């Protein structure tokens, strides 16, 4: 009996293993295995995703710790009822004295999660979405974009390399042709000289030599050379004299390698965000470090790099900020930015009047700042430059009652739109007083 039983057991065991092997090897079933995640209805997951992105992403991510803890595989870590209680009213859970809740609350700087009155279905969708996201492989987006940029630079270098080689080869070919032609000429002349039966006029052509010295001493050539020389020297003199007091192209090295191309260009931060005085005061203002810290309390390095960037560390040093603890000390010192644009005291310029009232774009005078790695003076800031703009620019009178009477008066005498020059934009004392 026992023996039979054993054999029986063995056979059933074999059978089971067979069946198991079949299941494993069956391609259809194996496929289903990898997509086991989608045990959820896609619609429920989509609804959950919408809800998650609308309400949770500001404090939670799947894998990274933000204001709140990462939510990867939360369904395995906590019971569903507990989660629902937490989502609906986290403070109640904390107040109930639950150990885990209290420790979490303490760990995340005593920041309470707001109450979300989600229905059971909505929570279902949320959890489904989190589970689906948790099972996805982490993405690596940053690395790919970086590589693309490198590849681009490489191709442009390659093309310019090709152009130079082609040019060099062309020059070599031309020089060779010149040498060959010279050789042919000399061989022919020698041949002709040996011939005895040439008459006088033909001999003259054969004996002819180019007298370079006489050519260069001829009046016409000397005249032309002197003229060109004088013209070039005069032009340089006048141009040089006109650069006195003009600082166009001045591009000082700043104490922190701040890039407008990154901040204003790539991340499209509005100029007004940092240069807060530009619509209210004479000067546009250089932002103080607290404005830097609005973002740099969180952003500590360039995309895809670990640790603290040495340039961002300079902000932290200036305001005595400890990025580890997030605390500020008292040992602060100013960041000594180098002034780029500097008008002499003899002229008055007001940013607010031009930007807020006149509606002039920053780029009109400062150039493509959003493309500058290091800021340089774009315009020459000469009086002629100011005056030209005042002659050509229409006054921005729209929605500004101050100009009503002036527009009326102007319209009586002229059909042209009112320019800045028509409201005293060329008066000396407008800027010089």
């Amino acid at each position: 009996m026992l023996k039979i039983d054993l054999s029986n057991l063995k056979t059933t065991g074999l059978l089971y293993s067979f069946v198991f092997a079949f299941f494993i090897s069956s391609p259809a079933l194996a496929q289903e295995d990898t997509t086991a995640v989608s045990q959820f209805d896609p619609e429920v997951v989509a609804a959950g995703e919408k809800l998650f992105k609308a309400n949770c992403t500001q404090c939670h991510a799947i894998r990274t710790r933000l204001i709140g803890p990462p939510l990867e595989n939360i369904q395995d870590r906590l019971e569903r009822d507990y989660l629902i209680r937490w989502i609906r009213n986290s403070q109640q859970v904390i107040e109930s004295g639950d150990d885990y809740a209290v420790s979490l609350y303490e760990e995340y700087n005593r920041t309470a999660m707001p109450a979300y009155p989600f229905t059971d279905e909505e929570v279902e969708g949320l959890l489904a979405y989190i589970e689906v996201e948790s099972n996805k492989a982490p993405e690596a987006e940053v690395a790919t974009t970086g590589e693309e940029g490198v590849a681009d630079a490489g191709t442009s270098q390659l093309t310019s390399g090709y152009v130079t080689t082609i040019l060099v080869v062309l020059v070599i070919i031309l020089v060779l042709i010149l040498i060959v032609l010279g050789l042919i000429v000399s061989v022919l002349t020698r041949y002709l000289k040996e011939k005895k039966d040439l008459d006088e006029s033909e001999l003259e052509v054969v004996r002819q030599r180019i007298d370079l010295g006489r050519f260069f001493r001829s009046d016409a050539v000397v005249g032309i050379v002197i003229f060109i020389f004088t013209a070039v020297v005069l032009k340089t003199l006048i141009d040089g004299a006109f650069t006195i007091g003009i600082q166009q192209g001045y591009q000082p090295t700043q104490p922190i390698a701040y890039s407008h191309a990154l901040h204003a260009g790539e991340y499209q931060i509005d100029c007004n965000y940092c240069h807060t005085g530009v619509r209210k005061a004479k000067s546009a203002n250089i932002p103080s470090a607290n404005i830097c810290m609005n973002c740099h309390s969180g952003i500590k390095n360039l995309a895809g790099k670990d640790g603290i960037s040495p340039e961002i560390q300079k902000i932290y040093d200036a305001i005595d900020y400890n990025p580890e603890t997030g605390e500020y000390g008292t040992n602060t010192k100013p960041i000594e930015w180098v002034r780029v644009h500097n008008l002499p005291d003899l002229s008055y310029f007001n940013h607010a009047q031009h930007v807020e009232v006149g509606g002039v774009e920053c780029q009109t005078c400062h150039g493509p700042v959003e493309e500058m790695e290091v800021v340089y003076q774009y315009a020459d800031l000469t009086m002629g430059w100011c005056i030209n703009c005042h002659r050509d620019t229409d006054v921005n009178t729209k929605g500004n009652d101050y100009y009503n009477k002036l527009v009326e008066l102007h319209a009586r005498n002229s059909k042209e739109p009112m320019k800045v020059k028509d409201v005293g934009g060329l008066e000396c004392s407008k800027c010089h007083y």
Partner: protein
Amino acid sequence: MTIYRMKYNSILAIAVAIILSSCTAGPDDTGVEFAPNMYHSVPYEPLSQITNEDAGRWVNSLDPVFSFDSIRRVDRSQPAEFYNSNPNNAFGMTMREPVPGTVKRGQYLPVRIAPDDFEAAARLLVNPTDSTEAVIKNGKLLYERFCLLCHGAEGNGDGPVSTKYFGIANLNGVAYQALNEGHIYQVITYGKGLMGAHGSQLDVEERWEIARYVKALQKQQQ
């Protein structure tokens, strides 16, 4: 004779041209200034500071290096022409922070609510601006300048910086719909969570206008 003179003249002209062309500004060089006294203010000027006491010594014709006029000699112990630093301030800065508690003329008196007491702010603060088209339009302008970079055009927390700075609030989220203008004002002024304080960038009225616009935006997005 004439050829020699011509040579001499042309060398002189080239020399002058080279000297003049070196007046041009370069990356780390402002170039030669016309009337340097005018580029370097005598009064303390904001956003400029020259700490070197000898900067611009050459401008003064009475300086002993240049002047033989021994009677009217300038005292060398005094800082030179371009020096522009205020010895009474820390680091010789030419600007000074206002005294704590200073209220700007024409501005509102400060409300003494603790920066993190959002509940009190929501209860006590009242928006002084009118709820007119113009105010909301201005609020929108200000929102686009100061908030859009993170919170996005529609307030969904998807502004251009959100790819780099995580944890940005979606203003249309359920929890944010319920917040009133007082709460929003307090958050703009002092910051909350990951958001920094924006009180230094925006006037009181501007903050209220933004708060008004945010509420209008939330209604639009609902």
